[in-house]
Structure formats: structure tokens, C-alpha cells
């Protein structure tokens, strides 16, 4: 008979680390978020219990709400576009029969993912620079890619450049895992290429699309490095994303309670959006 304690023995290391660096911080953030800084007289500000004051303030903070709006814009434009391109490329690559060409394109598409977000931000920061951008050199224009009108698109481009290949590989791997006899059967039934794509491949891609979609939503909510490294180069507002706003607000006035409340609102936002996404993707079937 196996010992009842055995699974817990194997779980202990993970659960210990998980409790220390996940549960405890989240619990601590919840606790912190209930305290506000209060100044009385000339003394230094004191932390006093404020109930849900910080949360009320978060929902009235137009700078913070604006950063959430930017993220919504990302979710509506950048994420679908990226997944559309990734799916298209995965489907095309899946039909490439030449082994060398397939490996070459796969590697080329994947390389940007190996570039850390900060480094990608640095590199594109140079490429966006008015005076040395190769694009400006070729076209002879003096486009400022970091001006307020197109800044969000410039950041979106960095994210797209980094992550499309990664998503493409996930989708492509899912296609490669499909047993070939499914296609064979579809062919025998006289299905055209387009029909095979539409009625066989795309439905088979659903779980992979769900996964890439969820990770894209989570990743988008957390965009930080790219705008953060672009800040010295041009006018990047503090509240370009919720994460930059939160970090800069806390770094500036050390109001951890408010920062914690913002972080928790962001976490809830992520949960709601992911749930919304999951329900819609699953529900369509």
C-alpha cells in the first residue's frame, strides 16, 4: 500500500517556494492596499488604515484609467493582428515540403523571441531614432517614430516583432502533431485545400490558439520593459501602460499602499479579460 504522505513529500519543495514567493507577496499586497498615507501637521506621512480608499482612488485616477485604455487598444488591435499573422505563417509553413526551407523560416521567425524585451526596446529605440533610422535613411524622411501620435504603434511593433514568431511556432507545432491520416481522409472525401484548412486545420488549432491568446492577454497587461527603455529617447508618458505608471508612481512617492491596490486591480483586470477570452473562444465551438 502506498503511503498517503508520499505525494506531499514530492510537492513540498514547490509548495514552499510557491507559498514564500507567490502566496505571501499576494497576501501582503492585499494587506498593503488597505493602507493610505496620511499627513498630519508637519510630521512625516503615516500609514493608516483606509479600507477601500485606495481602490476608489484607482478607479477615479484618470491617468491610470488611461493606461488601461491603452492596453485595451493593444488587445483589440495588436493581439488579433499578431495572432492572425502567426496563424497564417504557421499554415503556410505547415504546407512547405522542403525540409531546409522549413527549418530556415522557422528559425528566422523565431530569432526575435530570443531577444529580451529590454534589448528589443533598446534596438528598436535606435531604429526609431529620427537621425539614424535606416527607414528614414532609405526614404529620406524624418519620421519621428516616438512622437505622441504613433508612439503606441511603435511599441506595438516591438511587441509584434518579438512575439509573432513565438506564437507561430506554438501553432505550427500543434499542426505538426496532427496525424497525417486525418488529412488523407479529408482528401479522399474530395476536400479542397481551402476546405482542409478551414474545416480541418483551423478547428485543430483551437486549443493552441486559446493558449497563445491567453498568454498574449497576460503578456499585454504586463508590458513594461519596451516603453521603459524608450523613455529617455522621446516623450513617453508615465502612464503609457499600467505597469510603467505603477512603477513610476511608487518610485516617485513611495506610496506602496496605492501601488499595491493598482497591482491588484491589474490582476483582477487580467482575470476578467482572460475569462472573457476563454469563454468566447470555447463558446464558439
Amino acid at each position, binding site marked *: 500500500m502506498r503511503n498517503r504522505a508520499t505525494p506531499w513529500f*514530492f510537492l513540498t519543495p*514547490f509548495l514552499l517556494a510557491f507559498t514564500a514567493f507567490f502566496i505571501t507577496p499576494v497576501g*501582503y499586497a492585499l494587506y498593503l492596499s488597505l493602507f493610505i498615507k496620511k499627513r498630519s501637521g508637519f510630521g512625516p506621512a503615516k500609514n493608516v488604515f483606509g479600507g477601500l480608499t485606495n481602490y476608489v482612488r484607482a478607479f477615479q485616477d484618470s491617468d491610470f484609467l488611461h493606461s488601461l485604455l491603452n492596453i485595451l487598444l493593444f488587445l483589440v488591435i495588436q493581439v488579433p493582428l499578431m495572432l492572425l499573422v502567426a496563424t*497564417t505563417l504557421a499554415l*503556410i509553413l505547415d504546407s512547405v515540403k522542403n525540409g531546409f526551407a522549413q527549418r530556415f*523560416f522557422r528559425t528566422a521567425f523565431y530569432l526575435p523571441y530570443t531577444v529580451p524585451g*529590454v534589448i528589443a526596446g533598446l*534596438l528598436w529605440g535606435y531604429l526609431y531614432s529620427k537621425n539614424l533610422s535606416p527607414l528614414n535613411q532609405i526614404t529620406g524622411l524624418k519620421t519621428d517614430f516616438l512622437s505622441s501620435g504613433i508612439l503606441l504603434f511603435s511599441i506595438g511593433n516591438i511587441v509584434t516583432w518579438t512575439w509573432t514568431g513565438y506564437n507561430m511556432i506554438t501553432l505550427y507545432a500543434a499542426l505538426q502533431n496532427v496525424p497525417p491520416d486525418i488529412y488523407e481522409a479529408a482528401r479522399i472525401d474530395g476536400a479542397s485545400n481551402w476546405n482542409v*484548412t478551414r474545416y480541418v486545420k483551423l478547428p485543430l488549432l483551437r486549443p493552441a490558439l486559446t493558449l497563445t491568446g491567453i498568454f498574449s492577454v497576460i503578456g499585454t497587461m504586463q508590458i513594461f520593459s519596451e516603453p521603459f527603455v524608450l523613455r529617455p529617447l522621446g516623450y513617453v508618458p508615465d502612464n503609457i501602460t499600467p505597469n510603467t505608471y505603477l*512603477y513610476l508612481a511608487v518610485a516617485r512617492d513611495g506610496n506602496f499602499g496605492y501601488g499595491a491596490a493598482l497591482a491588484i486591480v491589474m490582476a483582477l483586470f487580467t482575470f476578467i479579460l482572460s475569462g472573457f477570452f476563454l469563454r468566447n473562444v470555447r463558446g464558439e465551438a
Partner: protein
Amino acid sequence: MTATQGFQEAKISTAPTRQKPRREGFSLLQFALLLLFCVYSLLPLWWVITTMTKDNSQLYSTFGLWFSSPSHFVDNLRTLFTRDDGIFVRWLINSIIYAGASAVGSMLFAAMGGYAFSKFNFRGRDSLFNAILATIMVPSTALALPIFLLMQNIGLINTYWAVILPGLVNPFGLYLMRLFWDAGFPTELMDAARVDGASESKIFWQLGLPLVSGGLVTVALFSFVGAWNNFFLPLVVVNKDTLFPLTLGLSVWNQTSVSSGQDPIYTVIVLGALISILPLIIAFLSLGRYWQGGLASGAVKG
């Protein structure tokens, strides 16, 4: 939608030769799309390689997508490794320590935890597993902020531990390892070993682990990349430059180059950026089948 057009075109072109249909249509348009995206993916990296061969003034005066001179490359390399008493080497070593510790630690924890979830039935198993998986959605900021305060309380701020310890938890790695245990280690084999009198730890370490080695490499690789790329956590928990990882160090160099305006070292930073991504490129090229396998198994069940 361009993909649609491509596939429809392919269909039409194969129509007259019904007798011997091509297995999959592949049109010029599709090839053009692949090529176009290939250029988009590689061009910034090509720019990095050409920029290494320039000094700072040539960055502005020469064409961005072509080389300048090998001697500047040597100069850049020398500056990169000697500036600020060769602190770049320190950053490189720090990144290796942070990412290496995260890879080994989270791999081991995920392997053990995934084993428990895959091979044992215990009370509350599924709800615990789902709860852990759901935490993937918690933004890293929500964690980094309280982690900073907690680390400060126990005096770990500005130590290696402040970056290493939080990197040991990888819920997605746990999820992947459970899938690998499900698929790679049959329960019958376990039961047979028990009948033969093998101890639980022997079954795990000697019998089980070798069978899921692919999963171990996958999780280690993902954790390594995650830690190597991490910027936010080190930004928050270390402010001594001798403890910076490459990501943080290079961004600080860039910031001072921009803000001070004098003696900017952009081309040196670009070279540093390339060196910072080389280990990941090598890892992915040599271990490619593992990450693709990992992504596939995650996606199929996801």
C-alpha cells in the same frame, strides 16, 4: 485576409490536374509572405551586426544597413569589456547565475511537483492544481512590489538571493511537467517497481526521471529564458550595479548615454546587446526540438 486568398489561389491552380492532386497547394503569394516576414524578423538583427563595425559618429553618418570597418569592431569590443572596470563581464556572469539557478531550481521543483500531481490521487488534488495554474495570470508587478518590501524586511535586498529565490517558482513549468509525467511514465511501470520492492524515492529518481528527460530540458530552457530576460524584478530588488544582470546593466548604460549626452557609447551597447542574446540563440538552435515539443504539448492540452 491574405491567407485566404493564397489558399484559394492554390486551389484554382491545382484544379485542372485533378487526377494527380498536389498534397498541399503552395503559391507564389505564400512564398512572398514567408519572405516578407523573414525580412521583418531579421532586419533589426542585421542592423545590429553592421552597427558593431562603427564608431559612434558613423552611426549617424553611414548607411545603417551596411558595414563600416573591422577596426571599429575591435575598438567596440575593447570598450565593452573594459569600461567601468570591466563591469560588463560581471553582468554576464550575474545573468548566468540568475538564469542558471532558476533553470535548475524550477526544473527540480516542477519535476517533483508535477510527479505528485500526475501519479498520486490525494484529496484536493485537482483544485490545488487549478489554483496554482490560475496564478499564471497574476502580473509580475503585483508580486515584485511586495517581494521588494518582504526582501527588505529580511535583509535580502541587494543580494543575489533577491533575484534567485523568486525565480524558483514556475507554475507553467509545473503544468508542463505534469503533462510529461502523464505521457512518459506509465503507472503500470510504477506499480511493477513497487511490487519488486523499490522505494518511492528510487522510483522517482532512478526509474522515472530519465523517462521524462525531454520535459526536464524543456522546463529548464523556458525558466532559463524567462530569468535571462527578466528586467522588472532585478530593477526593483537590486540597485548595486555589481549585482545587475545584462538586461538591467545595458539599459542603465543606454540611459546615461542618452541623458549625459557626452561620450555616448551606443555602438558598444549594440555589441553588448548582441552578446547578451547569443547564449539564447545557441540554446535554441541546439535544443530546438525540446522547446517545440514543449510548446506543442502545452498547446494540445491547453
